[in-house]
Every structure is written in structure tokens, then in C-alpha cells.
């Protein structure tokens, strides 16, 4: 009973179709508070689609999803920000705003929440130190390497202290060192209490892990 009580994400019989093509079929699972879960499987298995459903990047065709007590089917587009403020999302293509500096990209998360400039300054500097990018705060994303851009994207994802970190192939475009760096950062924040959902097809990352691994194949859960 105790385990059920701490389930942070509950997915019941969720399916997603693109037209007549199923991307996810009848997925049911629970993810618990402070868990670190890997989603693996080949390209097109539905890993990214599943994460997209969780941050309302896509809507599901059928089923129910509950995140921290919120029923996703009942959240309108104009109220999606309430859910997203509980989440920190990291993408394979970083999704940084090219016209804003590193500092501005990260500060955006806190500005959107109405935080005061002084506190924003403090928090952004602190997170930049954590990811080792404090000397690049005035740089623009396109002037950074892939690994550096992903560090900035990571900093942006965690600066708002989210309960859940959704990492969609965050190491997919990085070399081995940079990938390890990002993985270490995710581990650090997991230890600080965040729940981490990590989608990857990189088997080297999961080879010796003691975390839960969920395999997906052609939109189905592999037991």
C-alpha cells in the first residue's frame, strides 16, 4: 500500500494513434516518487511519444494519465503551464532560444513564474556553477558546443526545482564525455529528490544500472 501512495505518475491503458497508425498501445505503468526510470527501445518504439504525452506536447487517443494528482485529460491548453511547472524537460535538440543568452534562456523559466530579478540572478548563477557554465552566461547558444548547449538546457530544466525531470534522448547528439557529464548531472539531481524519466536508446548508459528499465517496442511495453 505504501508504494501505491507514493506513485507520482500513473498511466492507465494509454494509447496514441497518428491517424490509423498506433504509436503507443495500451500502456499502463506507475512511476514512484524519487524513482529513476530508463525508457529504452529502438527508434520509433514510442519512448519520445510517451514522454510527450506526459508534458502535454501531444494528446493521447485513449486512457488516463495522472501526474502528481493532476488528470492530464482535464487540463486545457491554457492551463498546461500549471503541469509544466512541476516538470523539467530536456530535449535531444536542446531547444534553446537562439536570440537569448545562456543566462536569459535559463532565467526565462523563473521570469515566467513571476520571480523577482534579484532572486533570478542568484538562482541562475548558482545553477550555472552547478553545471560548470558560469563563465559562459553571456554567450549565445549557437556559439556553444553541443555538450555545452545540453548543459544549459539541463540548467534550464532544473532551475525551477521541478519534481519530475523528463529527459528525451538528452545524450543522443553528444560525444561520450559530454553524455556522461549530463548523466552525472541527472544522477545528482535524482539524489537531491527529483524523479527522473530518461528515454534513451544508448545501451552503454543502462548496462550496469540498478535503476528500473522499461523497454518499449513498436508502441508496446516489453515485460
Amino acid at each position, binding site marked *: 500500500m505504501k508504494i501505491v501512495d507514493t506513485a507520482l505518475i500513473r498511466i492507465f491503458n494509454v494509447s496514441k494513434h497518428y491517424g490509423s497508425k498506433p504509436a503507443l498501445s495500451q500502456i499502463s505503468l506507475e512511476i514512484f516518487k524519487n524513482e529513476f526510470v530508463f525508457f529504452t527501445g529502438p527508434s520509433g518504439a514510442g519512448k519520445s511519444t510517451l514522454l510527450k504525452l506526459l*508534458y502535454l*506536447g501531444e494528446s493521447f487517443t485513449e486512457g488516463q494519465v495522472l501526474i502528481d494528482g493532476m488528470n492530464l485529460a482535464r487540463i486545457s*491548453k*491554457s492551463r*498546461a*503551464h500549471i503541469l*509544466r*511547472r512541476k*516538470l523539467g*524537460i530536456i530535449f535531444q535538440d536542446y*531547444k*534553446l*532560444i537562439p*536570440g537569448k543568452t545562456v543566462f536569459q534562456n535559463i532565467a*526565462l*523559466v523563473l*521570469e*515566467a*513564474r513571476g520571480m523577482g530579478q534579484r532572486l533570478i540572478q542568484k538562482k541562475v548563477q548558482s545553477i550555472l556553477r552547478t553545471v560548470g557554465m558560469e563563465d559562459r552566461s553571456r554567450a549565445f547558444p549557437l556559439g556553444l558546443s553541443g555538450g555545452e548547449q545540453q548543459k544549459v538546457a539541463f540548467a*534550464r530544466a532544473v532551475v*525551477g526545482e521541478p519534481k519530475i525531470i523528463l529527459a528525451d534522448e538528452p545524450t543522443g547528439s553528444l560525444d561520450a564525455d559530454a553524455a556522461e557529464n549530463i548523466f552525472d548531472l541527472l544522477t545528482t539531481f535524482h539524489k537531491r529528490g527529483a524523479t527522473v524519466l530518461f528515454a534513451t536508446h544508448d545501451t552503454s548508459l543502462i548496462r550496469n544500472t540498478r535503476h528500473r528499465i522499461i523497454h518499449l517496442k513498436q508502441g508496446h511495453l516489453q515485460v
Partner: protein
Amino acid sequence: MSNRFLNSVTIVTIGLSILIVSSFALFFMNTNALLDFWRKGIRVLVYLEPQATEANRLDLRYQIQQMENVQEIHFISKETALKRLKDQMRNHSSLLENLKDNPLPDAFEIRIIDTSRELTNVAALAEKIKSLSQVEEVEYGQHWVARFSHIINIFRFIGYAMGGLFLFATLFIIANTIRLVLYSRKEEIEIMRLVGSNDRFIKTPFYIEGLILSALGGIVGLTALFAAYRFVLSKFHSSLSLGLLEIKFLSIEQYFLFIGGSMLVGWVGCYLSLKQFLKN
């Protein structure tokens, strides 16, 4: 397309719309002033029957004085009228030299109270005086004043129609420009949403941008109008002013009213495109 280029195009197009609408407004303002000036000059002239006696005259004077809207009444005897005519025709005095009898009638000249100079009031008064006995004719320049008023009314109607049309054109231009800006920043807006921004946080900068662009457009349009006004004034002042009437520019209140109107249209344009864009 760069934002700077888009912004410049928007400011210029809003400026043009404001220029056209404000030109009409300025035109009406001045023609109305002209009409008013002419109206102020309206005197009602009451010509008496040739056989009218002194007693008739006094009676008529009394009756007219009692009427509503009458401010002043002067008697102009036919001798005074002839003398005035001779004065006016000094250069052609030979034409009047051989007159045996004075052909002009006795008359009353009536001035009307300022507030009653609407054409219908004057017409009603004239009609009332004409029905009195010993009155031969009543005249107040009705034909040309009525015709001029009619023309002004047609212009006014065209002005409203054009104003409305350009208002919608401006609205359309602003809405589309903001839409273009939104599309050019589609990815940025999507990222903002993903990191937890609500619609208000996303919309605010666009509203500010729309308001600044429309205010600048308004200033550009009115500056162009002022330049055109100065040009017209310097070139045609003597023939247009009639020596008495000054061609006026917008008052400071009207100037700010136009800027405010432009900003309002800008705001509505933003509202429309943001509403549509954020729904998708």
C-alpha cells in the same frame, strides 16, 4: 524576414492609414468652420410691399421682434438701400443716374441669435415672417447655403465610409504583422510554453510591441499630415483663406485622440491575432 523590416513596414502602413483618416478629419474640420463662418453671416432680409405704411412698418417690427430667435432688427428704408447700392456701384454710377423712381423696396434686416443658426431654424423663421401681411419677400441666401451644406454632408458620408474602411485596413495590417511576427517566433513561443510560461506571459511583449508600433505609426501619419498642411498653407494660403478664415490644424487634444485611436486599433489587432495563434 527580419523583425526590423517587418516593424518598419507596419509603422509605414499604419502611418498611411492614419494620414488618410486624419486628412479627412482635417478637411471636415475646416469646411465645417467655413460653413459656420458663412452661417454667422446670415442675415434675414424682409422686403415690404410698396404700399406699406408707417403704421404697418411699426406693427411688423413689433411682431418680428416678438418672434423666437430674433436678436436684432434694423429698418432699411428704400432711400438708404439705394444709397448703399450707389456706393457699391460707384464705378458704374451711370447705370443708376437716370432712375426717376426708386425701384427698391423698404426692408428689415434681422440678425439671428447665435445658437439658432441651423438652417432649419432660419427657414422656419423666414416662413413665419413671410406669412405676415405687408411682407413681399424674405431672403436669407437659402439656396447656396443649402447646396453647400448638402455637398458637405455628402463629403462627410464619404469621409465616414473611408475612415471606417481604413480603420479596418489598419486593423487587418496590424493583425497580420503581429501574426507574421508570431510565426517567425513560433519555435520560441513553443519553448516558452514548454518551460511553463502561461499565455499572459507570452502575450504581454506582443501587446507592448503592437502598442509601440501603432503609436509610432500614428506619429508618422500625423507628422506627414502636418507637413502636407504646411505645404498647402504656404502654396495656396491666399486663395484658400478668403482673407478672413484661417485653415486650422488638429488641436493637441485631437492629435492625442488620433494617437490613442491608432493604439487602440493596434491593441485590437494584437488581440485578434494572438487569440487565433495561441489557440492553435
